[in-house]
């Protein structure tokens, strides 16, 4: 052991495999999906969810189709504005210097919860995208298989 180099990548894979099997058994014991009886099915689901969890939010495709960001993105920052041209600066001053300090605790409490919700939303968006990718890949493979079958007929 002392002089042999331990390669950490295979070691980490070994630990991950063992962990995955433990989790699968635990879920089954707790009444999890019966499909998890098959370790290969569980591995595929585990990989998909891990990929979704690890995907950087900035690389997601789905938000491109959600329309203008202002219509769907949770806003965790405050932007003060006033439509009044003359009294506007005074209204803004009061909002910033009087109302904001008084309500900051409520703002921070909500902002924290909004951030958590946004994290869950991102994860769910990533899951949908991963499933869409998986589906597209399977459709492509199926199409190729069809072509081959037709050619051999």
């Amino acid at each position, binding site marked *: 052991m002392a002089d*042999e180099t331990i390669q950490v990548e295979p070691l980490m894979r070994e630990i991950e495999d063992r962990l995955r099997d433990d989790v699968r058994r635990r879920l089954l014991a707790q009444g999890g999906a019966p499909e998890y009886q098959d370790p290969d099915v569980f591995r595929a689901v585990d990989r998909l969810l891990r990929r979704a969890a690890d995907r950087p939010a900035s690389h997601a495709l789905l938000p491109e189709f959600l329309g203008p960001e202002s219509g769907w993105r949770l806003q965790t920052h405050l932007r003060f504005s006033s439509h009044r041209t003359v009294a506007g600066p005074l209204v803004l001053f009061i909002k910033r210097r009087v109302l904001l300090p008084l309500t900051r605790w409520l703002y921070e409490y909500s902002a924290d919860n909004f951030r958590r919700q946004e994290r869950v939303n991102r994860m769910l968006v990533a899951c949908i995208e991963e499933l869409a990718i998986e589906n597209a890949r399977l459709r492509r493979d199926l199409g190729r298989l069809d072509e081959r079958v037709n050619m051999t007929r």
Partner: protein
Amino acid sequence: MKLACVVQRYGAEVTGGSERHCRVISEHLATHHDVTVLTSCAQDYVTWRNAYPSGETTVGPVKVVRFPVARQRHLGRLAEISDVVFTTRSSPEEQERWFVENGPEVPGLIEHLGRHGADYDRILFWTYRYYQTFFGLPLVADRAILVPTAEEDPLIWVDIVDRLFSLPVGYLFLTPEEADLVRGRATRPLPPSCVIGCGVDPPPAVGPGVDLAAIGVSPPFILYLGRIEPNKGCDTLFEYFDKYLESGGRPVQLVMAGFPNMPIPPHPAIRCLGVVDEPLRVALLANACLLVVPSPFESLSMVLLEAWNQRLPALVNGRCAVLHGQIVRANGGLSYRHAIDFAASLGYLLNHPEVARQLGRQGQVYVEQEYRWPRVMEKVESFLEQSLGRPLSVRPGA
């Protein structure tokens, strides 16, 4: 060769990865070249409050010129503009305002670069994320070398950063992952670059006088070294560690050594020591089971090299490509991505001490091969020489 090193803060008292990197590289360069550090008067990275006197001074072998910070950082305004810039499609003006709010706003330093930039053969800028680089580098782009210390945080994807990345004549990176990140981010091919890392001195001897039990540290313990704050992944570490213990993992203490910038959960197995002196730091590294590095953003983990220098294996956040890359290249520990991986990997290392020891030894071999000062400085000198297209002129008398 006449060199300038531009950095947001500078001084022996200044902690922070990029500042320390700038200091040690400048000191080593100063043994052969005429080096001037251009920096702010700030010591504290939160407020950028002026702490050092402005003007010229000497720190070790290096000439330092400090410029006053025009205004302290307003955290509320920075948080507001950060939300705008990082969570929405922001305008170039808003993005530029982010750099102003982030500071340290040092107009004197920018003016100095504008007037005297041409006096230097090369100007090295540390960290792309601060005012002095964003506004200073474009003024001397024809002689600027950027040491971006880039991390996979949201700033790297902000549009205006692309313009900055296209300007310097060369790059010094800390790891191959950082080079890939910047290369992948830039829309144009990068100029010549070199991965230099950072030098590490041979490990100091462990003194006999440190009584860990007297300060509430009892083996077995795992060690976290550095600033204790959410940005460094400490909130996640506390959560994952708690889950590990809840899942029935082998009992172990988590020792946190560093300045606390967040509340520490009151947990009997968590011991926070605050900032520790060098002998205690060495004793902790010598007695810990492993070092844990939970940071999601790194360009090079110096503390990881320090741990390997003392044969300590590590458990790192694998979501950070740099940490994962360092672990794999060194074969010096394990990485985790989620809470269950953390528990499994920590349990494995604690239950297989002979494997853990071997990983620590492998880490030390890696540091010996890649991170001793002569090797690091050879890379820096040779890159600067190439960037000028001629052999470097050595300072008279050096």
